[in-house]
């Protein structure tokens, strides 16, 4: 009997969490070495939703790649479309018209709010604040109504095309969107009232999961995780793409880098994104919504019955697709999780030779071990929620 009790403190048990687990935000498998309730070692095992998207893209013409890459990080689909379309636009040296830039920004920022709402709802659900799920998804449904109004689909809209956007926003969209952008800060205030000073939430998130700024930079972590640790790095401000320089917005930056700061940073980002949407609606210029270059962009359907050349262009684009001159380009944007980079290698044919996405969740997942080691398993679950991995992006 005495031997049984003696060595209990050195007892380490390996526990497998996932891939089917309510708190793992997708099919993430964690192999965790537990000593009592304290996590000693952690290894994520991924690949359970690996879809071979990058390989499939090599088999498709450039515009057919767009629905494929949308489905990688399945909560922020507009960002993947923007990364790919932006990369191809740089490859073919195509300038998109200003109206398209502003429309893209509106949808990107709405998607950012959507992604943060899904994050907030599911993470609060993990921590036990179940009411947040209902409220966040109520707002999310409003955003999806806007997407459906403009594009016809709630998710995976294939709205961005190389050269601009596929069609213009309908009548009534602007009012509805503006009403949403005005209402959003009020709602965020309500979420903050629920969680910001909630004693249970504070106890679970304050001081938990801290990783230093330098370590995060070494690990390649970007996005709200890096900004919560005090580094004001945002690709929207660093690299001027689309029309972000013309819009006035702030980047929320945290101080300590614990889970509470990550929560505050993302919630503040929602408010900033609502401001960006309102400003874009104010500044939305008139004009074409897609570029004019018929070698890469479909002509409008009304022309097909009158112009032979348009018909030929349309035929060529739909059957073979456009050919991109050989070259390679890496184009990165700021997605809700960090730096989303798209590498496209073109070999002169109508199909890309390599499409690779530098997915932020994939790289951010490397910091999870640092966040969770030597803390309780409940803190690990909280850190996993605040890390905001989307396994579709991790596994591609």
């Amino acid at each position, binding site marked *: 009997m005495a031997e049984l009790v003696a060595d209990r403190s050195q007892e380490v048990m390996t526990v497998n969490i996932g891939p*089917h687990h309510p708190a793992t935000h997708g099919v993430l498998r964690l192999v965790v070495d537990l000593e009592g309730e304290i996590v000693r070692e952690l290894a994520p095992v991924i690949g359970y939703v690996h879809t*071979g*998207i990058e*390989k499939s893209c090599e088999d498709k013409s450039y515009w057919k790649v767009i629905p494929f890459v949308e489905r990688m990080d399945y909560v922020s689909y507009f960002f993947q479309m923007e990364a790919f379309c932006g990369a191809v636009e740089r490859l073919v040296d195509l300038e998109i018209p200003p109206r398209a830039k502003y429309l893209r920004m509106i949808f990107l920022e709405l998607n950012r709010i959507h992604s943060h709402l899904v994050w907030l709802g599911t993470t609060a659900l993990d921590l036990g604040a179940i009411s947040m799920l209902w409220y966040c998804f109520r707002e999310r449904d409003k955003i999806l109504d806007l997407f459906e109004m403009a594009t016809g689909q709630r*998710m995976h809209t294939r709205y961005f095309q190389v050269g601009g956007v596929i069609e213009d926003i309908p009548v009534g969209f602007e009012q509805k969107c503006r009403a949403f952008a005005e209402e959003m800060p009020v709602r965020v205030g309500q979420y903050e009232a629920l969680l910001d000073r909630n004693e249970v939430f504070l106890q679970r998130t304050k001081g938990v999961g801290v990783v230093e700024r330098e370590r995060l930079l070494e690990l390649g972590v970007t996005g709200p995780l890096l900004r919560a640790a005090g580094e004001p790095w945002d690709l929207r401000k660093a690299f001027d793409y689309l029309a972000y320089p013309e819009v006035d917005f702030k980047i929320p930056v945290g101080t300590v880098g614990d889970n509470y700061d990550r929560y505050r940073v993302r919630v503040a980002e929602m408010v900033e994104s609502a401001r960006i949407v309102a400003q874009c609606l104010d500044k939305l210029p008139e004009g074409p919504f897609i570029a004019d270059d018929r070698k890469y962009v479909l002509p409008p359907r009304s022309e097909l019955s009158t112009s032979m050349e348009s018909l030929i262009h349309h035929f060529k684009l739909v059957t073979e697709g456009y050919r991109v001159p050989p070259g390679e380009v890496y184009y990165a944007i700021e997605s809700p999780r960090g730096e989303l980079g798209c590498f496209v290698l073109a070999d002169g044919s109508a199909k890309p030779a390599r499409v690779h996405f530098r997915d932020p969740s994939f790289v951010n997942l490397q910091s999870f071990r640092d966040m969770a080691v030597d803390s309780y398993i409940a803190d690990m679950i909280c850190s996993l929620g605040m890390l905001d991995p989307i396994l579709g992006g991790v596994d591609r």
Partner: protein
Amino acid sequence: MEIERRSLRSKQLTARDMLRGDLEGEDLERYVEERVVTTTFEKMQNWARSNSIFPLTFGLACCAIEAPISIVTARYDLARFGAEALRASPRQADMIILSGRVSIKMAPVVRRLYDQMLEPKWAVSMGACSSSGGMFSNYAVVQGADKFMPIDLHIPGCPPRPEAVLYGFTKLQRKIQGNPDQGWRARYDAHGTEEWARGGPRSAPSPEAATAYEEARELARA
């Protein structure tokens, strides 16, 4: 059974007599008949099962945002069908919704989950990816979850709207109640127009298919 329309007063008097124990004979028989439904045990059991399904909290990819997360939210309320009790453990759940693409690494896990569920259980394949591989016809995605497990219901869409999932859910309920939706052929009396490959739904694979499978197996082993 004919239903007599009686005035409220006479109904009140009958009820009072029943409570006192004064009702007898034909009045008692009629009273009981009006309040009893006779049915078979199976029908009642199926009705109860279909209206209290415990789904498993299982989400694979994009469809998981629509179900099971979005359909339990207030707008597309799954609770009105009695299925609000989502269970995390497969031992306690009876319906698994395969929401998302099934990759080759995940397929054995899904099969193990399905095997751990207790009878009666139903599997719903939501979306194009789990029904047939969807747009991903490549090395990494299983081309349809019914390659390795039996599926009761397929819901098309990419991703299907939550309303579509709920519509599929009601069809599943009808299937559980023993009244499966036969589709348009039953409605329009068009049986006999089906096209079956190789001579029928339960026929053996053709000799060409059999040799092709053998060759593929040899290649994989080599």
